[in-house]
């Protein structure tokens, strides 16, 4: 994707009015939007249009959204933003485990939609953050090459696990990471059900790196699902 060519976004959603406002909002941002209303058509569109992002409803008439993600992930790593009307956290977890990157629970505002879209598209772009091993958010600066963390210029001591957790979250910034995924990445498969470890360590990171640990701005809780790191 070179600068200048508009990004293309595929919206797979069976409710026409939802497609309409999503399309309007995305087109105002300068994106090209393609629409599909079934899993089958969505996969065809994804294959021909090669979109930069897919917005996906989970309850489609001819199948589950998770099926779509699994089929798509067989050949593409295009980010997927799930638009879910379901309140069950398990559906979201299933979609995320199948390979979705983020989710929005209906009803959602145009602002939320655009913010999530921007965050996911930003991950595609090779930005300066990846060229240089230095990440900054708020008062915190992390030097990935030297494994050093500073807050307002002062060094912050992180344990090995805290640092590893921070790195995994940083490298997936903007993306929702399920509890299971984080536990596997940081503690290993044997700990994939020990969510209290993860929660305690995220709490420690917040106390060390957030301005107000009780109302975190960067280490965001996705209740019942996992965490999201946002810059």
């Amino acid at each position, binding site marked *: 994707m070179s600068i200048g060519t508009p990004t293309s976004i595929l919206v797979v959603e069976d409710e026409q009015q939802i497609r309409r406002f999503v399309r309007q909002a995305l087109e105002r941002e300068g994106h090209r939007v393609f629409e599909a209303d079934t899993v089958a058509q969505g996969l065809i569109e994804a294959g021909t249009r090669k979109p930069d992002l897919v917005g996906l409803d989970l*309850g489609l008439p001819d199948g589950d959204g998770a099926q779509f993600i699994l089929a798509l992930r067989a050949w593409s790593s295009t980010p997927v933003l799930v638009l879910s009307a379901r309140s069950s956290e398990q559906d979201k977890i299933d979609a995320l485990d199948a390979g979705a990157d983020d989710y929005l629970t*209906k009803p*959602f505002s145009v602002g939320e939609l655009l913010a999530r879209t921007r965050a996911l598209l930003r991950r595609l772009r090779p930005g300066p953050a990846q060229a240089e091993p230095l990440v900054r958010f708020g008062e915190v600066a992390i030097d990935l090459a030297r494994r050093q963390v500073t807050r307002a210029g002062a060094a912050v001591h992180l344990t090995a696990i805290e640092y590893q957790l921070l790195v995994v979250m940083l490298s997936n910034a903007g993306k929702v990471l399920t509890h299971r995924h984080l536990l596997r990445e940081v503690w290993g498969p044997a700990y994939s059900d020990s969510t209290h470890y993860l929660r305690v360590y995220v709490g420690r990171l917040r106390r060390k790196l957030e301005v107000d640990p009780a109302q975190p701005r960067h280490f965001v809780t996705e209740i*019942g699902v996992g965490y999201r790191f946002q810059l």
Partner: protein
Amino acid sequence: MTTSDRITADVASATIGHRADPCRLHRIYVGRPRLFANFTERALSFDARTADCFRMTPAPIRSLSAPLRHLLALAACALTAAVAWPLHGTLDLANTVMLFLLTVVLVAAFLGRTQAILASFASVALFDFFFVPPQISFAVSDAQYLVTFAVMLAVALFISHLTAGLKSGTDEAIARERRTRALYSLAKALAGSVAPAQVVEETVKFIAQHAGGQAMFLLPGDHETLQVFSIDGGPSAAALTMTEQLSASAVFHSRETIASREIGASDGLRLLLPLAGSTRCRGVLHVTAHSSRHTPTDPPATLDRPLLEAVASLAAIALERVHFVEVAQCSQLETQSERLRSSLLSAISHDIRTPLTALYGLADSLAGTTSALPESERETARAIRDQAMHLHGMVTNLLDMARLQAGKMPLRLEWQPIEEVIGASIRAVGLTLRGNPVRVELAPDLPLVAIDAVLMERVLCNLLENAAKFSPPGAEITIAAATEQHWLALSVSDRGSGFPPGSLPRVFDLFERGARESPVAGVGLGLAISRAIVEAHAGSIDASNRDGGGACVRIRLPTGGAPDIEPEAGDGPEAGPA
């Protein structure tokens, strides 16, 4: 038809007539001669239509009264003497002795031991009187006949002893086999039963037929009190005496020493048997012996206790099995209806949220800064958007309440720090809280709590939304968490109008609103849902008004038993500055 056959049939008919009540006489044993047994059975079934007729080896004569049997024994000896008398000239005395010995054997086989002993003496006396010279006299001419008498008596007694013993052994074995077969058929009938009524019916029938008693089942009803189980559902006529009731409940509750208990009564014996299942006592079996006593000289009614105990344990096993089948069916039904309910609720949820999403999103597009509409129209669009959001909140609360009211809501309890749920809740209601800053006061070192984060977030969101709804713009909302002994105390307080005086005891009731006809939107479900969720976590929730104005809702959640977090190995300076 021989004389003996006619006698047997007559005796049997007479017996039926004597016992008067054909319903009570359930069985007549028809004895030998086997050749004529069919005829006898026919005669009997004609006479006693309701009685079961069994062909049995024990002679019917055995059931006659003792004096009659003694007379029959003497008559048999006399008959032998009468038969041998005309042959006296031709038949050697030794062979006459043989005829008498044969008589003793027959008497022993058919009439019993004492009758055989009587016949032994009578035979020796008759032999001496009629056959040993001088005849028609007890005098003995030759002293060596004394040896004959002695040997004859000894042999007769020995034979009668052996025969009678053999006979009673056979009878016992046959009776035991019959009982075993009957028990087996009962077990088979009980194995096929699917309801307690069937078990009771089969067992009562069996005891009436095979154990000579009238059975009654006392099964635990509500509050573990024993009640007479009647098959037709009506109240049982057979009321128990106070003694029987007390004894029955003693038998039922004495779990350690499970034993049957006898109660004597004027009209016969009562037996109380515990129905001991493998997990608990399933009830008490009450058996009354059939009163066959018409005159004081009749033997008192008895009950076959080992047989009844076997029956009781069979019935207990069957009742237990039926009980567990019921439990399994119930839980299967519950699972199915639970699944149906949950799929129904999620379908409704999906169908309502889809148009709401479109409504909200379209209004939001119109209200957006990039919209070409004039400001007043954008204001209208914002109002539509906000109302759609309110509607969504109400629908969410209604669906949550439907889930909670539907009964068991499965909790996904996980150990977690409470501040995480607090942070997520503040974030979730962020838009509503725009005008009211939230202050979080957390005590240091709060323990982990086992909570369902999604549900607890609903509680805090509801409380925060309420606080924001009733607070003047700019007023601070405070969330505080601290430990109180074994509890985690959580409170949400505001500086709003507070709860109306007098409404505090009812604020958590369904559809209770802070103020009647209040202009503030909401259907009053929020607090009811919060209470249902907190109580499902074994916690408590209460509301109060603060000094200086404002409302405060306090939640207490149980703590303790949190899993340890292993300290990190090699907690070195590797990630920090050297």
